């Protein structure tokens, strides 16, 4: 059951601070509730969340029963290079859920030349071969 919803900007300029939102469907049973018969409902929560950006961990969270059902998270990271964000939720009773999203990172400043001659990013290459954008002085 694909129950994770994630929101990562499709495109960003290098160096931009981007917001990442992640939501997953989970009951987050606290372990403190009782049924009408008086039995304690066993705890069933997500205990940890991690986000990796091209393999490198950029955000990690430990959850406790005080996190609401269907845990939602929003956090930030700096767009550095095109690639993939991978998300992982781990919880009680062997709960594991993963999701991923890709991002395209362009050189900063589309309207004037990127000053890095070695830049091989699609956006910069296109500009070099075609009509060159005027340099801003």
């Amino acid at each position, binding site marked *: 059951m694909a129950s994770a919803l994630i929101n990562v900007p499709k495109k960003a300029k290098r160096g931009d601070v*981007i917001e990442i939102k992640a939501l997953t469907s989970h009951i987050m049973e*606290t372990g*403190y509730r*009782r049924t009408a018969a008086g039995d304690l409902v066993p705890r069933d929560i997500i205990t940890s969340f991690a986000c990796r950006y091209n393999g490198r961990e950029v955000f990690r*969270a430990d959850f*406790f029963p005080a*996190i*609401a059902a269907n*845990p939602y998270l*929003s956090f930030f990271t700096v767009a550095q290079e095109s690639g993939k964000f991978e998300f992982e939720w781990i919880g009680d009773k062997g709960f594991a859920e993963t999701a991923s999203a890709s991002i395209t990172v362009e050189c900063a400043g589309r309207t004037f030349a990127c000053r890095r001659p070695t830049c091989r990013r699609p956006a910069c290459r296109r500009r070099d071969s075609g009509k060159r954008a005027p340099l801003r002085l």
Partner: protein
Amino acid sequence: MRQKLKTTRRTFLHLAGGATLAGAIPIVTVRPANATPAMLAAAIRNVVGEAPIHTGKVKLDIPPLVENGNTVPMTVSVESPMTADDHVKSIHVFNEKNPQPNIGNFYIGPWAGRAQVSTRIRLADSQKVVAIAHLSDGSFWSASADVVVTLAACTEEAS
């Protein structure tokens, strides 16, 4: 600065003192006892250790009055340039009266660009919520907010 430190220590002693009192009264309940200010202080000490906690830098955004404690939006942001030398390492959120004092721990770094985390939490009662940020220089900064909850979480019967 010195003044600030003093206040923090006093607040902490206050909490600890209150805790001893609360501990002395035998509590016989069917439900697990809720976290007490002592548990809150203990949970905070667990993360912070002996380091002093300063007030400031941290902003805890949470509605002062919520109708439903089952899902309360919360945002913690920390004033920080988020450079390699000066950044926020982690943000910890605690509560006073839920069955457990911890809410969540969030680990970030200079690559985050902005020290801000949002999530949705549960509150079992009207209480104080505390956010603590651990900075790269080893200092701890905190902010707290009081929330009034009309419908509590956790206590209802499971269907």
